[in-house]
């Protein structure tokens, strides 16, 4: 699904929330930059992770567009801890 390309079509979009299971920071960064370049009015995008605990939402990062194509991606402690945990599990498995 080429949804990032589809999101480019929302030319008036100012705020975007993406709830995803994709916790890859590089991919999120790439998506954020692509959107910042292509959606001129986008001011803020939030990436959230749906948890397994009802309707709680874990905010992963907030993407704020500064100027031009410059974007600031700030990550919450949640995603960092989550990835550290996954990394630790992977290292132990190896």
């Amino acid at each position, binding site marked *: 699904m080429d949804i990032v390309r*589809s999101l480019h079509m929302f030319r008036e979009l100012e705020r975007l929330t993406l709830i995803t*299971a994709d916790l890859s920071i590089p991919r999120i960064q790439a998506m954020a930059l692509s959107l910042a370049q292509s959606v001129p009015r986008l001011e803020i995008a939030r990436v959230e992770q749906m948890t*397994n605990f009802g309707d709680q939402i874990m905010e992963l990062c907030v993407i704020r567009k500064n100027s031009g194509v410059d*974007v600031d*991606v700030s990550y919450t402690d949640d995603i*960092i801890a989550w990835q550290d945990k996954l990394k630790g599990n992977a290292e132990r498995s190896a």
Partner: protein
Amino acid sequence: MPRILEVMQICSHLHTLKDIHGFFVGDSALVDAINSHPAIQKVWITHPEHMRFPETSPSASAVPQANVLRKLKCAYNPELSPREFHETFETLRLMLLHGMQVDPLILSTRLASRYLLSPSLPQVQALVVHRCDQVTDIVRQLGDVLVAQRSPALVGLELLDMPQTTFRLVHSGHVTPPILSTFEMGGPRDISVFSVTSSENGVRKMVCRKLVLSLALVDGPASTNLSDILDEISSTLPDLKELSLRLPSNFRFPEVYDANWSIVTPTQVSAPQTHMLQL
């Protein structure tokens, strides 16, 4: 994620609709959510077939109706003949007219127009109907309507001609772009759309409020055309300001963009590099 949680999330949106007193029962997965939802005080049954929860949930037959309809104190007997069904409604109507507490009200679309048009039914604060194309008169009377129906092509055309009415459209069934086209025909309004679509493997929902749209898809065949749906939405709602998109759990953002896309240069992104980790 268990399917019921999906439904709970949809119901959580209902908290924002303070005057909701009923909810469409067309999917047994909604049952627990309805029963536990404090804002839902009454349940209107829109059509006898929904009492049987036929095809929407494989576990439907395993759910005792008494539990399913805990908030339905005056349950409809699906074995009733059409005449008995009429009589039941007539009894309910008379009870309401005489100020008796009837909780909830069982409703079918065709009978609704016959029995519920009277403005002297103060207990009817919200109405759940199965097909909005049959109940525009009721909409004008009540002004606060939940519409539950399975054919999105039928939604909205008449309702959007009534600008003074706040519509809460509850859609159960397959969600396709034409539903947005019908909204667009009427221009932006205070429209809330709660949509539940059952598919083989999950539920997807769509929420549209003015030009704020939230769409969620989970795994399953129905989610494979997410890109097409987004393309349709962007062309239908070109002024969309806010978008909330829940992606399928198996969705991964692309890592490499082709030449027609924006060139991605990681150094352009200010992010804590120490936390860069490819999962």
